C-alpha cells in the first residue's frame, strides 16, 4: 500500500502542470458556455434533448476523451519519454503497481475535471438535475475507460497525444457512427447510451443497457491496465 501511495502521489503531481490545468479549465468553461447558449434557444423537452445532444458530441465525444488523453497519456508516457521510468521500473516492485497507480492518478484528476463541468452543463442546460447527474455519471464511467486506454497508449507509442487524437476523431467520432457494429467497441457510444438511459429523456430503443455500459467501460479500463502491465514487463526501458 505504501508503494502504491508513493507512486500515486508521484503520478498525480506529475500531471498537475499549469498548462494542463489551463487546458482543462478552458475546455470546461467553453463547454458550459456552448451548452447554455445552444439550450437557451429551445424550450421544454426540446431543451433537454438539445442539451443531451450537445453534451454527447462536445462533452462525452470530445471533452472527456481529450482531457483523459492529455492527462493519462502523460502519466507513464512522459516518464518513458524523459527516461525517468527506469527509476520506478528497476525497483523490486511488481509492475502492476506502476500501471494501477498511474491509472488511478489519471482517473483522480480526469474524473472530477470532466464530470463536474459536464454535470453542471447538463443541469443548467436542460434545467434538470437528473440530466445533470446522468451526464456526470456517463462522464465518470467514460473517464475510467479512457484513462485506461490512454495510459496504455503512453507506454506503447511515441507521440501518444497525436495517436490519441486520431483515435478520438476517426474511431470514436467517425467509424463507430458509420458502422453500428463497431459501437460495441466504442467508449463514447457506451457513455452516450448510459447518459440517455439514466436521464430518461430520449427513446432508448437499441441502446446499450446501463449495466452493459458500466460493465463494458469497466472492462475496457481493467483490460488496458492489464495491457499496460504486460507492456511494462516486456518493454525496453532506456
Amino acid at each position, binding site marked *: 500500500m505504501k508503494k502504491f501511495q508513493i507512486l500515486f502521489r508521484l503520478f498525480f503531481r506529475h500531471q498537475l502542470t499549469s498548462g494542463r490545468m489551463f487546458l482543462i479549465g478552458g475546455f470546461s468553461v467553453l463547454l458550459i458556455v456552448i451548452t447554455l447558449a445552444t439550450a437557451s434557444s429551445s424550450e421544454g423537452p426540446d431543451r433537454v434533448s438539445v442539451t443531451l445532444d450537445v453534451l454527447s458530441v462536445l462533452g462525452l465525444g470530445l471533452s472527456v476523451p481529450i482531457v483523459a488523453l492529455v492527462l493519462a497519456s502523460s502519466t507513464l508516457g512522459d516518464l518513458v519519454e524523459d527516461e525517468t521510468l527506469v527509476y520506478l521500473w*528497476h*525497483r523490486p516492485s511488481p509492475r502492476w503497481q506502476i500501471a494501477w497507480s498511474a491509472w488511478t492518478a489519471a482517473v483522480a484528476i480526469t474524473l472530477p475535471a470532466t464530470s463536474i463541468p459536464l454535470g453542471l452543463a447538463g443541469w443548467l442546460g436542460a434545467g434538470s438535475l437528473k440530466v445533470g447527474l446522468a451526464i456526470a455519471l456517463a462522464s465518470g464511467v467514460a473517464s475510467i475507460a479512457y484513462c485506461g486506454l490512454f495510459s496504455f497508449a503512453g507506454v506503447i507509442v511515441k507521440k501518444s497525444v497525436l495517436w490519441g487524437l486520431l483515435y478520438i476523431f476517426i474511431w470514436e467520432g467517425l467509424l463507430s457512427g458509420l458502422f453500428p457494429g463497431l459501437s460495441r467497441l466504442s467508449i463514447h457510444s457506451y457513455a452516450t447510451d448510459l447518459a440517455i438511459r439514466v436521464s430518461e429523456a430520449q427513446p432508448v430503443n437499441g441502446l446499450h443497457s446501463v449495466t452493459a455500459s458500466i460493465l463494458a467501460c469497466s472492462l475496457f479500463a481493467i483490460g488496458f491496465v492489464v495491457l499496460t502491465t504486460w507492456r511494462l514487463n516486456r518493454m525496453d526501458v532506456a
Partner: protein
Amino acid sequence: MTQPPRPNQGPPSQPPVGSQEPAPNPSISLPPPTLWPPPDATIVANTVSKSFGDLVAVSGVTFAVQPGVTALLGPNGAGKSTMLRMLSGQVKPTGGEIWVAGGNPRTDTDARGRIGLVPQQDGVFEREIALNVVKMAAILSDIEDPEGRARWALDIVEMDPELGRTVGTFSKGMRQRVKIAQALVHDPTVFMMDEPLNGLDPRQRRHMVELFQKLGAMGKTVLISSHVLEEVERFGSHVIVIAKGRLAAQGDFRDIRNLMDNQPLRVRVGATNLRLVGAELLRSGAVVSCTIVDDKTLEVTTNSIIRFRRVVAKICQMSNSRLEEVTPLDDDLESVFRYLTGGGR
C-alpha cells in the same frame, strides 16, 4: 545467494577473455580461466548480443565480473551503454544470457532488488525534492525506515537532505549525486553506474572515486562505465574493454599491456653516458629506436620489453654508465585502451 549458471545453463565453451571473435586488435591472448564462470562472480554475461534492426550493437560478448570495482570501457558507440543496460535488465538481449546477483535482472524481482543502478540519462523526477526522490527509491525497495535511509544516502553523496529546491532546478552534478544516492539507498550488492562522474566537479569526483573504492573494498561489485581514463585508473585496475560491440579484453589492464608482446613499447631510461648507452642498446637489437630527451634521459622504443630488461643493466655496466631510471611510458590505461580499441599509438 544463488550460484552463477553452470555448464548446463550454457556457459561459454571458449575462454571468456581474449577469446571473442575478431576484436579490433586480435593479438592479445590471455590464459583461459580455470573455472567459468568464477564461483564468486556476481555478474555473468554469456554470449550476449543486441541488435537494433540491422545494426549490431553488441555481438557475442562473454565475461564475468567479481566483487570489487570494474571499469567498463570503450569508445563512444562501442556498445558499453547498451551492454550496461542489458546487464541491468533495462534492455532485453537479442541473444545470450545474463545473470546478475542471483538471477535474470529483467524478470527476477529479487535480483533487481540487489542492484543499484545509476542510469546514464540526466533526468530525475524534476518536480520532486532530492529527499523525496531517494525516499521513494527506498520505499519501492521495501526499506524499513525510508526517510532515515534516504537522509543517510544523501549524506554520503554530500547533499543536504533539507534542500527545499526541486530536482528540476539542480545542476548536472547535483542531479548526478541524487542518482547515486538513490542507487545506494537500499544497500545493493551490485552497482551498475553509467558515466557516474559526469557533471561532477573535481572535488566531488575524488569523493565519488573514494566511495566506489570503499564499496569495492566492502565486497560489493561495482561496475562503472566511463570514458574518463585517468579516473578509471584510480577506481582499480580491473577493466572490461568493449570495442565495436565485441569484448576486446578483460582483466587487469597492466597484465593486458604486458601481453601486448608484439606492440612497440616506449621506455624512458635515465642514465649517465647516454650516447654510448643508446648506441649499445641499438646495436644489441633490444630497441628499435632511441631518442635523447635531455642530458640524463633517453627515450627508447622496444619490441620486446623482456629482452630490453635483460640487456639494459648489462649495457650500462659495460658502458661505464650509472643506470638511474627505467620507466615504461605505455604502461598506463590509456595506452592499453588505445591499442585495444584500434586507436593506434
